[in-house]
């Protein structure tokens, strides 16, 4: 099985590699178009600023490569900013255009009296009406705590793609999504202990099933 971790010079990707390795998969870091289009599965990591990340993607031609990969209908897992970048637009440091693969936008959480920003910590996943079976959340316990670290959240136009929400104060936001073979997590599965590793394992299983 060939899983590529998109390499665009951003964040801690070593931990994603380490998490894949727990399940015997050697994740390969790459920004090469041919590698990516040949991959069985792609993980799209990301932390930091939306606009800068889009610039890094474009400078490597990865924006077009990701869109082409999506057309192959093979599985992709976007993590944190990697999920946010799939949307139409983001508003970090001024409005900027995203990849436009998913409809909706990315917006900044407001500063609330009883909450801190960035939103950092372990929060429970609140299940939506969509079934988790055969998704990245398969067999994850409802209300399981995952590790979040972010100030921005995505707002999908189509709410039926939301697998789970989480809360910041009284604001509910999209914590995980599924659209065809595209999966997204606002939390960091590679940093969410055994519950997070289950998400990585589920993604590997999804990739494996697609290969059959």
């Amino acid at each position: 099985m060939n899983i590529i971790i998109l390499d665009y010079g951003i964040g801690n990707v070593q931990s994603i590699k380490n998490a894949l390795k727990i399940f015997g998969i050697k994740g390969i870091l790459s920004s090469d178009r041919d590698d990516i289009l040949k991959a069985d599965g792609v993980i799209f990591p990301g932390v930091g600023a939306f606009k800068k990340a889009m610039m890094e993607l474009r400078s490597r031609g990865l924006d077009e490569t990701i869109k082409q990969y999506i057309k192959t209908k093979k599985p992709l897992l976007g993590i944190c900013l990697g999920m946010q970048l799939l949307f139409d637009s983001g508003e970090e440091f001024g409005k900027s255009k995203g990849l436009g693969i998913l409809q909706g936008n990315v917006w900044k959480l407001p500063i609330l009296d009883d909450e801190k920003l960035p939103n950092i910590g372990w929060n429970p996943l609140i299940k939506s009406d969509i079934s988790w079976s055969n998704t990245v959340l398969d067999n994850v316990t409802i209300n399981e705590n995952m590790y979040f670290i972010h100030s921005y959240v995505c707002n999908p136009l189509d709410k039926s793609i939301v697998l789970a929400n989480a809360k910041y104060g009284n604001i509910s936001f999209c914590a995980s999504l599924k659209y065809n073979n595209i999966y997204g997590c606002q939390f960091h599965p590679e940093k969410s202990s055994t519950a997070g590793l289950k998400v990585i394992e589920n993604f590997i299983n999804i990739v494996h099933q697609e290969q059959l």
Partner: protein
Amino acid sequence: MNKIRIIARIDINNDSVVKGKCLEGLRKIGKPNEMSKKYYEEGIDEIIFLDAVASLYDRNSLINIIKQAAKESFIPITIGGGIKTIKDIRDALSAGADKVAINTHAIKNIDFVKEAVEMFGSQAIVGSLVARRHRYRWEAFIDNAKHRTNKDAVEWALELEKAGVGEIMITSIDNDGRQKGFDIELMNSITRLVKVPIIASGGAGSSNHIIDLFRNTNCDAVAIASLLHYEIENLKEIKNKLISNDIDVRI
């Protein structure tokens, strides 16, 4: 409010875990990766490794420890001590760290913090504030509490927030290693003004001290060392005690 986070603070000299009092008289008490792995398995929420002497002797001995920890512990890992260039940060993050904690070089050059935030994002940069009490105010110290700066700790926290750090870890020099509780006034004087998450460090000698901290301050996380290193209480006991006192933690 989010669950509070319990963070294992592992101070390191060369390849040993060290602990002293008031950040002095450091004694070797274990191996970093053995301890971090144990705490991960017991359910710690995060790990912070601090290279206790890096800013004094100009070296960075943590990379191999981070690499090993990131293979074994799938929770956030922060590294601090002697971080002074963008390359240091890049090396730490590519070894598997999620965040770096910066003190000395932030005080020497706040533009370095701004540049780091722009490059890696707020979530990767923790402002490390090490403070000593002078009656009713606190002064920021650098070089692992060896040198004073004449900077007011509260004003310095505000500058760190303005520079864009994602969190601030506040270490009380006076309370560190003494196991007699936290400097609640120091924490309050900062959380009153600062909106980024605050990690309190220095003074935990029992779970009661942690309960006291969260009942009386608006801190978001606690970094503990002696309490775990000397096995005064184990993590499970600490977390259960917090929950029975209505303080929400991850089980």
